[in-house]
């Protein structure tokens, strides 16, 4: 990754709307040809960041560079990036040909070349023969394709996509995810993709930037973000997880003994990270990594009762209630062994399947934030 050329560099960018601090000290480098997703719940500032790259909002502070050139002061039409808008924003008074041709017309490209390239582009998004239709005569998926074609025809260095599949039904969305991913690979254009759908982000991205209330919590590959979340928020937001409040008690080698509210367990201490004695941490274990047994397991003492089971496709999800009332989720394929409802079991895991996250910095920050937002 290091050898790749940076194409968008966001340096210490802040954005404040009146009293509302929407983006905090954002540092983010996007590399040529990558598929970068900004992921976070609605209202966390994703659209605002995209609009600052596109030129529709000015940062309150910091720099944005595209291809090494500062662009904060440049108009949208002076930037070599194109946007696929959340609501498509097709021109309702133009047919599909003229919608797609618009960018080229603005650049005064010759007529013959325009019709050739529009044709090419419509073929690329599988809309051959739609030239004479109007946007109001298209389905949601087709409008989406037109919006993509209209942006891509300008051969931008970077394509910004703001929840482009948000308005589509699930099946179509899955199809379009694949299509978009393939399109991006084929063209080699950098995609900056915004979504609040973590599955979508995991499925499509080279890297994911997880946003939390205007802060960039983690920037990593999908595997890393899933396997090694660095904050409680990331662990919670991406996939399902069991999060325990814990204290570090004893570290031998890289195996740590951690004390839970009820009982104790083993975990893996992150290399190069030092912990204060009895430091407060979060321990996060994915439901598919939680193991169970009738016998007690060396190093673990978490007991619980299986409360209920749900079948989701070929996966069986069990909810286990432990002594402090917390629900621990266990998921298994239906061909695997599952606990019985009502059974008392001991919970454990492989020490390298638990992620231990420092909690203090984050906690303090979220306390301050919750206080200033009146507790969201």
């Amino acid at each position, binding site marked *: 990754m290091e050898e790749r050329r940076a194409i968008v560099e966001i340096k210490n960018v802040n954005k404040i709307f009146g009293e509302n601090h929407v983006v905090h000290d954002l540092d983010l480098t996007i590399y040529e040809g990558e598929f970068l997703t900004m992921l976070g719940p609605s209202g966390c500032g994703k659209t605002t960041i995209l609009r600052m790259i596109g030129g529709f909002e000015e940062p309150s502070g910091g720099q944005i560079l595209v291809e090494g050139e500062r662009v904060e002061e440049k108009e*949208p*039409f002076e930037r070599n990036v194109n946007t696929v808008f959340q609501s498509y*924003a097709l*021109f309702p*008074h133009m047919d599909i040909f003229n919608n797609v041709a*618009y960018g080229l017309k603005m650049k005064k490209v010759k007529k013959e070349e325009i019709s050739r390239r529009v044709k090419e582009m419509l073929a690329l998004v599988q809309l051959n023969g739609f030239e004479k239709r109007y946007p109001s005569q298209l389905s949601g998926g087709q409008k989406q394709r037109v919006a993509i074609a209209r*942006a891509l025809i*300008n051969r931008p260095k970077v394509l910004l996509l703001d929840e482009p599949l948000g308005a589509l039904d699930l099946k179509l969305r899955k199809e379009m995810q694949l299509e978009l991913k393939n399109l991006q690979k084929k063209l080699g254009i950098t995609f900056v993709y915004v979504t609040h759908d973590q599955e979508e982000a995991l499925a499509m991205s080279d890297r994911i930037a997880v946003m939390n209330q205007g802060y960039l919590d983690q920037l990593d590959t999908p595997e890393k973000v899933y396997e090694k979340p660095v904050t409680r928020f990331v662990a919670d937001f991406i996939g399902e997880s069991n999060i325990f409040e814990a204290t570090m008690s004893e570290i031998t080698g890289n195996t740590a003994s951690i004390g839970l509210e009820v009982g104790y367990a083993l975990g893996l201490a992150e290399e190069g990270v030092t912990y204060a004695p009895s430091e407060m941490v979060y321990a996060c274990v994915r439901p598919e990594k939680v193991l169970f047994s009738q016998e007690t397991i060396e190093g673990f003492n978490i007991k619980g009762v299986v409360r209920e089971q749900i079948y989701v496709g070929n996966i069986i999800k069990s909810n286990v209630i432990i002594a402090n009332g917390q629900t621990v989720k266990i998921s298994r394929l239906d061909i695997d062994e599952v606990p019985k409802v009502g059974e008392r079991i001991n919970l454990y895991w492989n020490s390298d399947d638990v992620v231990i996250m420092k909690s203090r910095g984050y906690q303090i920050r979220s306390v301050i934030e919750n206080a200033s937002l009146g507790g969201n």
Partner: protein
Amino acid sequence: MRNRRKKFGSVLSNIYSYLVYLFLYLPIFVVLLFSFNTSKRNIVFEGFTFEWYLRLPDNDSLLNAYGNTLFVGCISTVIATVIGTLASYGMSKYKFKGKGIIDILLYIPVVIPEIVLGISLLAIFNLSNVPMGLTSLIIAHATFSIPFVVFTVNARLAGFDRSVEEAAMDLGAGRLKTFFTVTLPIIMPGVISGAFLAFTLSVDDIIISFFTTGPGSNTFPLKVMELTKTGVTPDVYALTTIVFIVTVAVTFLSQRDKKKPVKG
């Protein structure tokens, strides 16, 4: 029993709507009829003739007044439409302090008695030495038409999705290009209704024109008013009939135009 009562009710409401249309169109029909009357006095219909239509081209003062009306109507409509559209666009795009007050100020010329507006305009024209005649008429008509254009364009802009403008700029269009290739075409129906309204208001305005015209620049409505003192002759009816037919034709055409499959 119940059924019959229902039927009776619907017959009544039918009669009612026929009556409404009768009251609306009967006077027009009478004018139309008497424009073909051989008698000069509009009391009895004596016989059918095209004479008044044929003699219209010789009636200089009537035609001249009508020409003035069309001229003032066209020019003031263009002025009011341009100014009104830009004002509406600017007010919807930019938020500024005192916007609410400006919105209210725009309603006042619409609701105050025309006579007040007429006298005020006359006073201003006198103070500022604007030549009384077609120029003052055009300024006056443009003035009272602007709010109506603003209202119709506002209505159109209310449902306007700003992101299409951003899309245009994203694709390389500057601000002016964006306005003319994207914004204006989309709000055009509002602009056109505004222009129609302005033209209609201008063409049949009497009170404000009465105060703001000068010697020798009579408009058609003023001329007709003048004639009523000595008795309206069938040639006025003939011209009125032509105006009526043209208006009906234009209205039908513009309604048909609205059904194009373009949504905004």
